[in-house]
Each structure stands twice: as C-alpha cells, then as structure tokens.
C-alpha cells in the first residue's frame, strides 16, 4: 500500500494548550479512516495541519509527498477538504462558487458543475448561497470537495445537517472514491454510521492518539465482552441457567431473555453449553461491542493512564 498522508510525531500548541500531542500515523491509498474524539480532541487541528493552514510546533506532516505548509502547495490540487461549518460568499450562486473553485484547481468547470447534480442541489444551484439552509450549504461543501477526483479527502463532520437520503448518497460517493484508491479521512460524531463503513478508526483524546486500527482489531485490544442474548423457555423468573459459567456476568432482561457478557473467544463455547444443556433456545442474538462502547472504553483507559 502506498501512503498518501504521513504524520510523524506531530505536536501543535496554541499558547499553553496542546491541541495535538505527539501524534503519528500514516494513511494509505484506498483507506476510509474515521477520526473520532470529543470536541477539542484535536481532530480539526490534525486536518488543518494536513492542509498546511497551520504549522506544527514540532514533528512533520507530509501529504502526497510534500510539506503542505509550503506556500502554493501543488498537492492541494489533488486534495478535497470539507471544513466543519462550511461557509461561502453569500452573494454568489452555487454554480458561480463551484466554477470559481474548479478554476482554482484547474479542473474543467462543466464537470464540476455536474457534481452539483450529484449532491442533489439541482435547480437551487442557480440561487444565491445566502438563501441556503444549513443542509444545502453542506451539499455545496461536499460538491466542492469532490472537484477533480481528489486523491486525499479530508472531511470534517461531513454528515451534520444532511438528510438521511443524502447521507446514504454521500457514503456511496466516498466509498466509491475510496475503492478507486482515494484516501478518505472523516471525522464524525455519528459513530453508528461509521461503524459499518470505516475500515480503520483513529481515536483521539485531548490531542493524544489513544487507539488506531480496524474495528475488529480495536475489539480485540479492548477485550470488551460480546453480549449474547438468548430467548429461552421454561425458566423461572430471575433464575440463572445452570450452564452459565460462574465467571460470566449474566442478566435476565425480561421474562424470557438471558443476557450473558462473554469474552470474545468464549462465544462459541457458551452457545455449545446452552444447547448441550438441553435448554430450549428459541432465538439467539450476538451483539459485538459497538464503536460507541469501544470509544468509551479507550477514552476511559486513556483518562486512567497517567
């Protein structure tokens, strides 16, 4: 895999505040990476560093083989960025805005204007941006980020303000781009949305990278229990079935459901035990730890570490 973005031991201080502290990672072509963390965890700062809008206090950032903070950085031509709370000049229409940005990237204007249809701006594209709602500005923001097949896409909270339908289209577009080899880095609070899509997750807390890897890998590291819910018949209320090992936490959810917290590698063993004991299991549901839970786990862990 070829790396497109390389962040090496980067620290960024604003006065006494350390916005990013010793972060290192590489992003590769074709990766769809979710950057998650609290407000103020350093997500936006990281993106600004990659864009060269700010310079790191120490460490180095390399994007598409160049230092982004060096003046008229040509790599920006292959870079799409959607800032958090994107805004445009209110006096111009969406078409004029899109044409302006296409010219700056030396991309054909007609192709850039076609993107306005893709994001569903359609007829509204001839209206002034000043009259737009938040969701429509977000669509335009997306359209400008997609100009000219970017090799690196940095999206800061891209789905806020988008309706569910466009959210779906949005993920389709970026999944296609990443399949074509673009690096997509997106920060979001909508963790459930990212869970199914992101191939890799980077968790930030107070400027420090606390976790980095695919969701499976993070689940393995975190060793959070998988919840197994069994719908059983013939158990008295509050009775804990005898086949549940003594070291497993077990709860009764309602009259018929037993919930067991199982260590990842003991899932199958538990199911075996349940069936072997002759319990009549009507239904089974296996819930692996969600991204929400993983996130909370890694945050707790990093808070406890000195």
């Amino acid at each position: 895999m070829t790396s497109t973005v390389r962040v090496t031991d980067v620290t960024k201080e604003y006065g006494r505040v350390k916005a990013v502290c010793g972060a290192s990672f590489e992003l590769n072509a074709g990766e769809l990476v979710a950057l998650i963390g609290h407000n103020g965890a350093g997500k936006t700062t990281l993106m600004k560093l990659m864009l060269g809008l700010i310079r790191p206090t120490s460490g180095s950032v390399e994007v598409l083989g160049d230092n982004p903070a060096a003046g008229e950085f040509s790599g920006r031509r292959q870079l799409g960025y959607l800032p958090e709370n994107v805004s445009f000049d209110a006096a111009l229409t969406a078409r004029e805005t899109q044409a302006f940005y296409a010219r700056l990237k030396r991309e054909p204007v007609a192709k850039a204007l076609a993107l306005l249809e893709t994001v569903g701006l359609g007829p509204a594209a001839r209206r002034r941006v000043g009259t737009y709602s938040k969701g429509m500005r977000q669509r335009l923001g997306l359209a400008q980020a997609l100009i000219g097949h970017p090799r690196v896409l940095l999206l800061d909270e891209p789905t806020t303000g988008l309706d569910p339908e466009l959210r779906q289209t949005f993920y389709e577009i970026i999944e296609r781009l990443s399949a074509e080899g673009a690096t997509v880095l997106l920060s979001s609070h909508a963790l459930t949305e990212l869970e199914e899509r992101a191939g890799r997750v980077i968790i930030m807390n107070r400027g420090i990278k606390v976790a980095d890897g695919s969701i499976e890998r993070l689940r393995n590291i975190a060793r959070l229990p998988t919840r197994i819910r069994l719908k059983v018949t013939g158990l008295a209320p509050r009775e804990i079935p005898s086949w549940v090992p003594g070291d497993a936490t077990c709860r009764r959810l309602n009259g018929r459901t037993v919930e067991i917290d199982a260590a990842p590698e003991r899932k199958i063993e538990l199911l075996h035990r349940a069936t072997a004991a002759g319990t009549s299991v009507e239904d089974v549901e296996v819930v692996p730890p969600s991204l929400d839970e993983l996130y909370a786990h890694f945050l707790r862990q990093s808070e406890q570490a000195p």
Partner: protein
Amino acid sequence: MNVLIIAAKEIHQAIRNRWVLAATLLLAGLALSLSFLGSAPTGNVGVPALDVVIVSLSSLTIFLVPLIALLISHDAIVGDMERGTMLLLLSYPVARWQVLLGKFFGHLAVLAFATCLGYGLAVAAMAATGSRIDSDSLMAFAAMVGSSVLLGAVFVAIGYLVSAFTRDRGTAAGVCIGLWLLLVLIYDMALLGALALDQGRSISATALNAMLLLNPTDAYRLLNLTGFANVSTFAGMAGLAQSTSLTMPVLLAALLCWTVVPLGLAALAFSMREL
C-alpha cells in the same frame, strides 16, 4: 493566473453586492453637483471652469476615496476568516500572497471604475452644457482622476494591513476609522498648528517636505494642486508650487511607496497568520 481568478471573483461579488453601483453613484453625484455649483460663481469671469472643478473635486477625493477604499478593504482578510470562507479558499492550491494580490486588483478595479465613471460623467456634463475645456485642463483632469485611483490604492493597501493584523472585524473597522480621521483631518491640523507655533524657526523646508510625504493625502493634494500651473493659481497654491522641491515624480513615488509597503507588510502578516 490565480491572482486573476480571485480578482475576477472579487469584482463579481462587488457588482452583486451593489458596491460598484453605490460607489459610482456617490462619486458621480458629488462630482456633478460640485462641477455645476462650483463653476457658478466663477463662470462669467472667463476662467476655464474645469480647473476650478479640479480643485474642488480633489478636495472631495481626499475625504471620500480613502473612506470608500477602507470600507471595501478593511474586512478583506479578517472578515473572510470570521465568515469561514478563507479556511476553504486556502485549502485550494493558492498561495496567500496570490489571494491578497487578487483581492487588491479586484478592489482597485472597482474603485477605478467608480472614480473614472463618476468623475468622467462630470466632465461630460460640463462639455455638454457648453463649458470651454482646453487640452491643458483636460490633462490636469486626467491626472487628477489617475492620482485619485492611486490614492484609492494606497488606502486599500492600508485597509489590508489593518485587516491582516486584527482579530475581528469590529476592531478592523474601528482602526480604519481612526486612521482615516488621522490621515485626512488630524494630521494636517496638527501640522498647521505646529507650523503656526514654530513661526519658521526650527522646522526647515526639508522637514516640512518630509512631513508632507509622510501622509499620502498630502502627497495627493500637492500633486494635484501644484502640479499644473492653471490649477495651482485657483487653489491659492501658486506660491507654494514655485517654492516646493516636491516635484511630480517624487510625489508619485511617495504614493507608490504608500501602496507597495503596506501591501507587502499585509502579505507578510497574512502569510504568518494561523487559521
């Protein structure tokens, strides 16, 4: 190329926002009224009225053009940063100096258009109503319009400098109003007061010249009121015109410096600024 793209967008925006219209109407209205009111008292004495109009119009320019220039330019950087549009623009393959220069040419084009059209209308109206206009006066008038645009450039550059250093738009506007008052009104009054108190004892002619060059509006005033023989007679500056060593090239150079230096400093401050 990038500079032109950004300049074109600034002009487009200024047309949309009615800035062009407002500035042109303002300058044309005042120029027209001055040219007719101003020529009325002298109209019959056989004076080429245009020379009188140049005197009154250049005095008007000193107040108005810097004000318009600062209004357009004071939020060019800090305003775009506050609105968040600068963040996106700088993520594109443009250098910051290109953004600044593009804005400068765009704003200057707006100002030049308004000045040329507004003042040009006044001359056209005078010609149409039968005023005698000789070629000397026309030259002086053209020089006046040209130097007015240059004065505009000076204040656009000063506005950028303020914009590059301030943290919010309100402060930028306040600082610009202060600078306008200082350069257009207070400086001359203070200079006059100092000269009157000094009675020519310690302030030499060279020092006075230097002090006049230190204020772009004074350089502009001298350029127009002493530069042309006819005009200086009516401006009451004929005596000064003969004695001053500040020739036209020196005054022009001063105005150019007043444009290039603030613009360069603004570019420097902007390039070091973090978003």
